[in-house]
């Protein structure tokens, strides 16, 4: 299953402890529950009319103090040693400065390159130096089983070594204000040479993992109408559906020509969706926000050709 995807060494370390504790827990729970049900049936008033007046048993008390104690201590030890591994970065790890702010993440690499998603080469240790400029945030990559809080005035560190190529969610885990749940990003794990091409490339070196992200969204973009291919490749469809289903943002289905309430600088206005509105709202999403939706859409640079394709495609959805 996708969600038990182990995409880093830390995930293997964490899951190993989890399955150990999970196994013990299931045994304990089944044992207690079975015993409870058995006693209730076996010693019911009907079957066992006279209760035996047992006050206790010192040997048993010692036994069931010792066994859980040993069990819990073994869980502690296993959990602690694996945690130490997950916490202490190897010396040759590449140090990335992670900055959290309301409500976004940014990443700065040793040579000064910056990005909004985290790029990482597969099989190389990456050390995260996590800071916050405002509130307490939490840096969490579920596929790596990795979490460290971003605390203002402190630098907390953790590290990972990815074992799978792919794109993995980064989420904020500490409530930090209105758009806490939109404080998301991605870790893009790519082969090392692809990472190097971007890292050592100039200003305009293409970001790694583009093909990966597009392919993940849709394996065969060439067969799609040009506008839909753009929407797919740019990730628009994460928040906007084309079939009328509401998502994080409004659907694009039957959008063209609709009367729509929008917030412009805090005031509600009613507009008719036409070419001009679509172009303006795609290029400058913050200018006009459709009522009832969070002002969450990022500015995504499109070429004129791409913009034309998208607008033409949206018209076909009526």
């Amino acid at each position, binding site marked *: 299953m996708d969600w038990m995807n182990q995409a880093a060494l830390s995930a293997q370390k964490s899951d190993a402890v989890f399955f150990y504790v999970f196994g013990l827990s299931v045994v304990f729970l089944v044992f207690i*529950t079975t015993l409870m049900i058995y006693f209730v049936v076996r010693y019911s008033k009907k079957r066992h009319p006279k209760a035996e007046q047992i006050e206790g048993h010192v040997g048993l008390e010692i036994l069931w103090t010792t066994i859980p104690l040993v069990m819990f201590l073994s869980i502690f030890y296993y959990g602690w040693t694996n945690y130490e591994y997950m916490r202490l970065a190897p010396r040759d790890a590449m140090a990335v400065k992670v900055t959290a702010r309301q409500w976004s993440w940014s990443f700065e690499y040793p040579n000064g390159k910056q990005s909004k998603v985290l790029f990482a080469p597969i099989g190389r240790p990456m050390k995260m130096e996590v800071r916050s400029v405002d509130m307490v945030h939490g840096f969490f990559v579920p596929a790596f089983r990795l979490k460290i809080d971003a605390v203002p005035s402190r630098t907390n560190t953790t590290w990972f070594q990815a074992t799978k190529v792919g794109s993995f969610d980064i989420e904020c885990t500490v*409530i930090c204000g209105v758009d806490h749940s939109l404080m998301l990003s991605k870790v893009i794990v790519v082969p090392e040479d692809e990472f190097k091409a971007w890292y050592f490339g100039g200003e305009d070196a293409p970001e790694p993992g583009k093909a990966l992200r597009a392919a993940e969204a849709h394996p065969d973009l060439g067969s799609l109408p040009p506008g839909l291919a753009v929407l797919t490749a740019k990730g628009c469809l994460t928040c906007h559906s084309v079939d009328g289903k509401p998502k994080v943002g409004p659907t694009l289905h039957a959008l063209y020509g609709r009367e729509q309430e929008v917030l412009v600088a805090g005031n509600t206005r009613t507009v008719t969706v036409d070419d001009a509105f679509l172009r303006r709202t795609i290029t400058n999403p913050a200018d006009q926000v459709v009522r009832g939706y969070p002002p969450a859409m990022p500015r995504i640079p499109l070429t004129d050709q791409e913009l034309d394709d998208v607008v033409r495609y949206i018209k076909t959805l009526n």
Partner: protein
Amino acid sequence: MSTQASTAQPSYLVDTGTRKGLMAWLTTTDHKRIGLLYLYAMLTFFFVAVGIGFVMRLVQLTTFQHLITARTYNALFTVHGVIMIFLFVVPGIPAVFGNFFLPILIGAKDVSFPRLNLLSWYVFMAGAIFAVLSLFTGGGAPDTGWTFYAPFSLKTGTNVSLAVFAAFVLGFSSMLTGINFITTIHRLRAPGMKWFRMPLMCWALYSTAWIQLLATPIVAITLVLVILERFFGIGIFDPAKGGDPLLYQHLFWIYSHPAVYIMILPAMGVITEIIPTFAKRPIFGYKAIAFSSMSIAGVGSLVWAHHMFTSGLSSLSVMLFSLLTMIVAVPSAIKVFNWVSTLYKGSIDFQPPLLFALTFIFLFCIGGLTGVMQGALAINVHIHDTYFIVGHFHYVMFGGTGMALFAGLLYWFPKMWGRMYSRKAIYASWFPMFIGFNMLYFGMMILGMMGMPRRYYVHLPQFHFMHVVATVGSWFLVLGLLMFFGTLIYAMFKGEKAEDNPWGGVTLEWTIPSPPPQENFEEIPTITQGPYHFVQQEGKS
């Protein structure tokens, strides 16, 4: 058992003073009436918070949000937490059953300080009113989560100051009740009621009272510091002024972790009373249970930083707090073994209170074991601040304390109101409650393992299926709750008259009439043996 114990005193439910009706209740110093005042107030708050939880689940039915705004959602989970924790689960069992039954269980006419007891209720209500006011005044309902983490709680424009002040006031009610119970247990035990002859509920309340007394002042001071920081910028917690946000977390959890034991210890006490009565034999390991309560109270005060494993503590403190967390799990395990062993070779009379008590054991085991998972550092790094935590603590707080409160209500209902409820209707309410509970909170734990962070207004598409499962579970759960309380409220007015001792219990509350007379006992009893002696009963029935 048919003979009603003869008594000259009227029932505590009858007004005998100069004041009648509501005024008689609002000025009462009778511990039993005060217990009911708490109960009615707290159940009202409980249902408000259940309603809020219900709405939050509806919001998660979709991956987009139309129903309410993000700001409202953040206020909802904050208010749900504040009400449930400060107005229901923390005061819960001690304020209701502690007040009602502690004096009776030890053979006393009332608590040591009856007037202080009434004052505690008024302080509690004042705190509750401030909490409600904070929703509608200032910048609106707080949106920080019930933990009020700095610096967000210092910077947000919402009405954190008043909400925090409400928690501060509620803390006083808790401390005063603690002082009252400690004194009562030390001073008012009936002749011959030695420490180890007390019913174990009293031990649980005694341990709890000490935590209330010692830990609550810390959170009170911390909350005052938050208010001072918001109004005067004193810079204790604000890093921009040289303060330390982690200091806030430490101070907050130094109280709020022991508070978890304030919530669960009395629940364990209730379960410990119920099981021997229906097994018709003494509790297994009386002293082990009494000492485990005290050691939970002691060790439980030293584990607070396990709420902060990912916040950047040193290797050493992380290691020590994980170790101590594992150790505090041992006394809870001891209790579970002793409860189950009490069923062994009993003569079990299966009745609704026992069903809910056993449900408590099952759900509390899941809650406890998932707690151990979080105590293990390597797992904690993954599941901290996710839905796993939310699921886990609902298993402990609702499956544990909530179920124990329900079990206690079923157990003592005939004594408190002198009437009996329909057992069939209670069994019928159990099924939707149990199924819905597990769908909702086990579903949440799976979501957490998948990586769903808590306090999210919108969720990513991969989490959607389990969110739907959890929401459907919440409908069953609410249905069960409505059936349960519907049955009890009906029985309160229309139930058939209850016997003095419908379950065949042997602790002192079953030796007096139902409902109890105003001063509990005609004559203070003299105690000659431990609390769970069933032998002499056999001839009678």
